[in-house]
């Protein structure tokens, strides 16, 4: 083994570690960071020099085997066996291409601390430098492992002889997360088949019947235990008959789509993403996924593979769509939380947030897909269970929406190689976490390799254009097992696992079958296209292997060489799961009181203090430090960019004309009542689209639930109410849902009890917009223009940002009045389309007051506002008017020349002129506030990591 240590000529990397340590209250005199390449195999000195030339920059770096003085302490960190290192893979490939026959390359990070004690270094190691799930400190000589032995031995399990208790015990020890009834049904199935199941067969059931893959809670039945409970605030639909809801998803969210029958919805809740029509040639698809559990354990790898996974959903939607944009929405714990208060095995929110931002930036940017929309929400109950939502939007020709596997088609695996990474991901995300999760499910953690996926993307889209395959799906949770079984539905399949290309030797057949290694997809193609498929994939540097054939057997039959490791009836596998009714206790209406009574005159004088507090609250504070780390302009299509408006607007360059796409989302987990929470999230998504100029008659929605344990009856009751809210509002708005995903079991068990996330409903919206040039951004633009509010303000401060800052726990939460809201949205759309509105911003967290300030930022102008005219009910105190969070409201800057036309359009809805754009850079509100915008903006920009 030979060693190259590379040192940069400046100390920027070390300074950054020093800064990170400083943030933790640790100090080091100075820190150095070196890259170490370990070269395994026999090479000549000349070849060694060539490799040095490749891996080192001769201007900026020097190499050697460095020695360090006595006051220096050195640690070297390497990746664990089996954890993929894209840089090592790529370096090895270059060397081999230049004719240098190396056995392998390993890359270490070497840290040198000067004048630092062991205790400090240990803390820095634990909190910054090392994640033991994927890395270790190098001790002695680091070996190149060619083979990583499997621990799995047991060939079959005598299931039919087990009693209920034993079945449940087996489910637990194998980590299947199947319940007693499900295990019983499986046991009966194998009795009928007259055989003992193999480990692979049990794993297959565990995966396909997991919450993650089958969504058995959302698609299951619900028994309501307290039907008489008053459903607050009201249910627009008639109370559903009986105490049993059959298929919660179908009877609420999917029902919206079914009842609305929009001709432009091309596919909803069927494919890997929802698909709507764009124009006569193209369709648009959109999917949002969660990647919560993996991101809790390894934030960078978790979010990167989250974005990687949702991109493959789009590549596997229809016959494959071209990804044109990503979205990312994070929920994390409070950043100033103390380390001592963290439960064992839980990473600090700062580390999590930094890691997940870096993961999305690395993967999304390298994929060449702009990240155009996102947000971060902070709440202490996200500390143990951070939420990471990743979305992807794609475009495809309309004639590639449908796909069909034919009998006799080849099963073709494309993309990356298979390793032991990500085993048990599907089942692991279907259970609650505790401090043992790290060690038990460490293998579920994965590192992404965006280059492999980019090559796959490029090859795939060429192959699609040439119509070389008949069907496709991604390898996500459950790996080849899930994707092959799903593709084979209605036909049958035979797989030869020994053909699967592996990252290293030593995987058991079962491990190959269920591995969740990233960057892989499965195609079904006719044998006659194989040669051309191979040529295309080869040209774009992506691997392609035939691993089986679809045959008319209605069974999943999997062999490793001669040995059959899995042979199951496909129909039973996909449809045989017993429907289990979950029990729900609906939330009881609480009288929350009017609230805000305590806010009296004395607060008025402190309006500037309060407003600045709100603007620097992490939920509101500028996310520029994150947004700039994402390439939001690649593909040249981002007409309205993040930071400028409530929604992003895209006009893909390969589409003729001015038609485009508008994308936004809403999230309101701070409202305790899950009905208000869901309704407000939906309204916010729609508001954001409409504020930018979106057409409310061409909006489709996606739902993503992140919930606590659904076995808890109250959690289940909240889920029912949230689903009802989405139905109630979407049906009136006439906006279909096209896709959704739920992540339940976001709960952490410890000695101190259970901690679950607040019920969190992300609603994403996508709209088709006729002319991307008829859209508006949020900052004010012209001196002298009148400023209006549209929408009605109510005393709705319960759990508002103001109340949370002041720690008031009373007050009604925002209600929803969908009939009035949609009328308003239609008029807003007309007024923007007709060029009357020059800027627009919605009122959401922090209400009217925060929205006003945000409109001023970066504009160079100011606003003079009069609160007296604001259309409101039951409100007197300026504080309540300024910071109520009533839904469905906007602030607009109107072109002064079109003032009267605008007022004509708005006649009949709640609206009022509330002020004007002024030349001084100040926000002036009655005689209550007169403050420099720069002062507010500095506060707003003060929070970054």
């Amino acid at each position, binding site marked *: 083994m030979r060693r190259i240590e590379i040192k940069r000529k400046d100390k920027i990397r070390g300074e950054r570690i020093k800064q990170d340590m400083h943030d933790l209250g640790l100090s080091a005199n100075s820190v150095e960071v070196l890259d170490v390449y370990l070269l395994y195999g026999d090479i000549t000195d000349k070849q060694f020099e060539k490799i040095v030339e490749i891996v080192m920059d001769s201007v900026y770096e020097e190499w050697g085997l460095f020695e360090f003085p006595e006051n220096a302490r050195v640690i070297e960190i390497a990746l664990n066996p089996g954890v993929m290192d894209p840089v090592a893979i790529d370096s090895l490939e270059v060397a081999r291409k230049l004719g240098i026959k190396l056995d392998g390359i390993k890359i270490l990070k070497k840290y040198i601390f000067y004048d630092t004690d062991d205790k400090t270094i240990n803390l820095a190691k634990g909190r910054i430098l090392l994640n033991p799930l994927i890395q270790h400190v190098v001790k002695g000589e680091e070996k190149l492992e060619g083979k990583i032995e499997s621990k799995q031995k047991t060939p079959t399990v005598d299931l039919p002889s087990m009693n209920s208790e034993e079945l449940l015990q087996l489910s637990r020890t194998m980590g299947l997360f199947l319940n007693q009834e499900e295990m019983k049904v499986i046991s009966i199935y194998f009795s009928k088949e007259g055989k003992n199941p193999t480990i692979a067969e049990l794993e297959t059931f565990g995966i396909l019947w997991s919450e993650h893959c089958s969504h058995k809670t959302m698609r299951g039945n619900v028994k309501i235990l307290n039907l008489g409970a008053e459903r607050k605030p009201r249910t627009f639909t008639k109370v559903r008959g009986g105490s049993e809801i059959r298929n919660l998803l179908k009877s609420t969210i999917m029902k919206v789509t079914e009842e609305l029958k929009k001709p432009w919805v091309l596919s909803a809740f069927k494919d890997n993403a929802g698909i709507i029509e764009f124009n006569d040639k193209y369709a648009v698809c959109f999917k949002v996924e969660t990647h919560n559990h993996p991101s809790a354990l390894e934030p960078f790898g978790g979010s990167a593979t989250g974005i990687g996974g949702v991109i493959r959903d789009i590549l596997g939607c229809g016959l494959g769509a071209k990804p044109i944009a990503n979205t990312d929405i994070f929920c994390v714990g409070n950043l100033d939380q103390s380390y001592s208060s963290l439960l064992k095995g839980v990473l600090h929110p700062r580390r999590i947030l930094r890691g997940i931002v870096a993961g999305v930036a690395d993967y999304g940017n390298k994929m060449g897909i702009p990240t155009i929309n996102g947000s971060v929400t902070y709440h202490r109950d996200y500390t143990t269970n951070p939420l990471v939502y990743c979305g992807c939007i794609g475009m495809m020709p309309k004639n590639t929406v449908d796909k069909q596997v034919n009998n006799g088609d080849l099963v073709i695996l494309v993309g990356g190689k298979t390793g032991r990474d990500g085993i048990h991901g599907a089942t692991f995300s279907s259970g609650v976490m505790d401090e043992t999760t790290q060690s038990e499910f460490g293998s579920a953690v994965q590192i992404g390799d965006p280059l492999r996926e980019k090559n796959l993307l490029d090859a795939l889209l060429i192959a699609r254009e040439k119509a070389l395959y008949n069907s496709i799906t991604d390898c996500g949770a459950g790996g080849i097992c899930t994707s092959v079984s799903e593709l084979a539905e209605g036909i049958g399949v035979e797989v030869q696992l020994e053909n699967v290309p592996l990252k290293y030797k030593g995987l058991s057949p079962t491990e190959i079958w269920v591995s969740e290694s990233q960057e892989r997809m499965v195609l079904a193609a006719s044998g006659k296209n194989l040669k051309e498929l191979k040529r295309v994939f080869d040209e774009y540097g992506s691997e392609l292997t035939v691993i089986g054939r679809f045959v008319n057997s209605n069974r999943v039959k999997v062999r490793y060489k001669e040995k059959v490791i899995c042979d199951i009836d496909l129909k039973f596998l996909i449809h045989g799961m017993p429907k289990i009714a979950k029990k729900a206790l609906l939330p009881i209406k609480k009288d929350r009181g009017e609230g805000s009574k305590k806010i009296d005159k004395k607060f008025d004088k402190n309006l500037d203090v309060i407003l600045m507090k709100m603007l620097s609250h992490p939920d509101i504070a500028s996310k520029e430090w994150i947004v700039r*780390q994402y390439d939001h302009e690649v593909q040249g299509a981002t007409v309205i960019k993040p930071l400028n408006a409530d929604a992003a607007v895209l006009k893909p360059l390969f589409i003729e004309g001015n038609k485009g796409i508008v994308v936004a989302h809403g999230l309101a987990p701070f409202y305790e009542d899950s009905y208000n929470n869901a309704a407000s999230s939906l309204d916010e998504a729609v508001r954001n689209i409409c504020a930018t100029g979106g057409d409310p008659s061409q909006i489709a929605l996606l739902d993503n639930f992140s919930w606590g344990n659904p076995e808890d009856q109250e959690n289940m009751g909240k889920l029912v109410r949230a689903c009802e809210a989405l139905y109630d509002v979407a049906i009136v708005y006439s906006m279909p849902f096209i896709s959704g995903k739920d992540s339940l079991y976001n709960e952490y068990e410890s000695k101190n009890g259970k901690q679950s996330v607040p019920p969190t409903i992300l609603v994403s919206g996508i709209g088709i917009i006729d002319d991307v040039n008829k859209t508006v951004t949020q900052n004010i633009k012209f001196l002298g223009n009148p400023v209006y509010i549209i929408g009605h303000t109510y005393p709705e401060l319960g759990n508002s940002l103001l109340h949370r800052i002041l720690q008031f726990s009373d007050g009604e939460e925002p209600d929803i009045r969908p009939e009035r809201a949609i009328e308003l949205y239609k008029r807003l759309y007309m007024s923007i389309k007709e060029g009357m509105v020059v800027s627009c911003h919605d009122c959401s967290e922090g209400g009217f007051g925060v929205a006003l300030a945000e409109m001023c930022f970066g504009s160079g102008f100011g606003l003079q506002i009069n609160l007296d005219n604001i259309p409101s009910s039951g409100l007197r105190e300026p504080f309540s008017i300024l910071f109520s969070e009533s839904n469905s409201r906007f602030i607009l800057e109107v072109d002064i020349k079109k003032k009267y036309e605008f007022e004509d359009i708005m006649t009949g809805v709640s609206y009022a002129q509330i002020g004007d754009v002024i030349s001084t850079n100040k926000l002036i509100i009655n005689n209550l506030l007169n403050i420099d915008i720069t002062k507010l903006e500095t506060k707003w920009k003060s929070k970054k990591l």
Partner: protein
Amino acid sequence: MVKVLILYAPGINCNLETKIAFQTCGANVNEITIRRLEQKPSKLLSYDILVLPGGFSYGDSISSGKILSVYFKEFLRETVLDFLKRNTLVLGICNGFQVLLKSGLLGNGVTLTENANGRFEDRWVSLRVTDSNCVFTKGLNIIELPVAHREGRVIVEDVKYNRVLAYIGDNDEPIMEYPYNPNGSNNAIAGICDNTGRIFGLMPHPERFFLSNQYPGMWKDGIPHGMRIIKNAVDWVRERKV
């Protein structure tokens, strides 16, 4: 007809918009994969402009553009030198600039590394064009373009180089201060040209500003600046062909 070759390598991601921008300027554009070009390098000789577009070639493994620059030197160097003997142009944008520098086509003793803040940075910057023989920047003075990169800090040893684009502050002077200079580049360098004026590399993305609606805010100042850079190249070749 002006013929443009856009070189695709694994990880490159600005090829489509670069292609459309050149097409908008009336060029005939072909995208060719590095794998094909390595098999038959002489293909290059039938083109007038070679463009290395932005992205993360080979995942930017080792460092940005490094692996592609190794292949460039090992397999394509002779052909590129032949190509340059004719009246041809080479443009490297972002990752393409990184490749040009690391393969020595813009001289030695200059390289690109991680931004001073260690992070990827997407933002619009103001730039000043130095008066020079650079074909691409002819007639331009102060321009705006977006940057989007993680490794855009130009490091120069004590050598002569031809800075034709500099990051500038509010007073239109070259600047070291963030965020005007988004990456901490030595001498505020954003783009470099060779002595002939025909090989040009820059970190900002001209292909992201060839349409007025790509500009953040309202664009009223005539032809978008990115379009002017690309048009300069296409027009220069066209004039020589007539």
